[in-house]
């Protein structure tokens, strides 16, 4: 029974769920949990990833009747995952739960090292994962939820404005404007600790 049902396509599984077979959703969960967790882990803090992924699948389940069979389920689910992460940050910022840490001397040195290095090899050696992550978290915490999401998708992941717009459910023009502004804000934030004019 399980072998037969595991061969069903996404569309067939969705049809079964809509007809009342909630257990069929387990196949969707097993198939896409790593994909969703990959998206969520990049956008929300480590300790919040499981809970956010949980929300993603609940939202996906409730929205299944609105899923248009013409589009790919994986993309549709990715869009729900990104929007759930956006909602997570909106809630966080609203309740002022975002930690406002400050940059230490070590972080400033990391920034200076990144900028001063001229060779790619040396640049690679200087890259400290922990310092880089902390500098990034510090800068992102000072942006709005919208700026944060756009910056992560376009600036850090390298998606096009059109792709990011599709995931966030915004217009491409909106993403382009926000992307430009948030990048400026980020550079301004980072140029503070290491001296103005270093990052333009």
């Amino acid at each position, binding site marked *: 029974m399980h072998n037969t049902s595991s061969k069903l396509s996404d569309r067939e599984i969705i049809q079964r769920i809509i007809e009342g077979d909630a257990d069929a959703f*387990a196949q969707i969960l097993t198939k896409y949990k*790593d994909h969703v967790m990959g998206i969520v882990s990049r956008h929300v803090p480590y300790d919040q990833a499981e809970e956010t992924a949980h929300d993603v699948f609940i939202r996906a389940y409730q929205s299944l009747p609105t899923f248009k069979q013409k589009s790919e389920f994986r993309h549709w689910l990715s869009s729900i995952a990104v929007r759930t992460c956006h909602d997570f940050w909106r809630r966080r910022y609203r309740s002022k739960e975002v930690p406002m840490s400050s940059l230490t001397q070590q972080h400033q040195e990391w920034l200076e090292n990144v900028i001063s290095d001229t060779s790619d090899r040396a640049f690679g050696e200087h890259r400290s994962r922990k310092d880089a992550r902390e500098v990034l978290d510090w800068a992102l915490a000072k942006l709005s939820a919208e700026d944060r999401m756009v910056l992560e998708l376009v600036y850090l992941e390298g998606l096009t404005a059109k792709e990011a717009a599709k995931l966030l459910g915004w217009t491409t023009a909106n993403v382009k404007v926000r992307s430009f502004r948030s990048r400026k804000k980020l550079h301004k934030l980072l140029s503070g600790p290491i001296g103005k004019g270093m990052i333009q």
Partner: protein
Amino acid sequence: MKDNTTKIREALSTAYREKDTVHTGDLWETRVMGHIRSLGVPASPANFSALFGGFVWRAAPVACLLIVVLSVALVTLDYTPEYEITATFMTDPIEGTVEQLWRG
């Protein structure tokens, strides 16, 4: 040679991509499925055009019937609303009309 913004971007992008992915266990999956089962069948969204369409077609026979009844009533009762309105303003409405009232 790379400019400063490119260097910063590359360093931050690498840090972002190298962020650890959380791996879920069976317990998490069981918890999600338990929540899913408690929700029941996902509800279809309300289709407003279909609802409106149904309402319009249900009201159509009543509207037709009402038109017929009012038409018959107007013909048989010989009701002259203009006369009634004029009568409320003029003592002798026989030769008067609403148009004359407005003209003064």
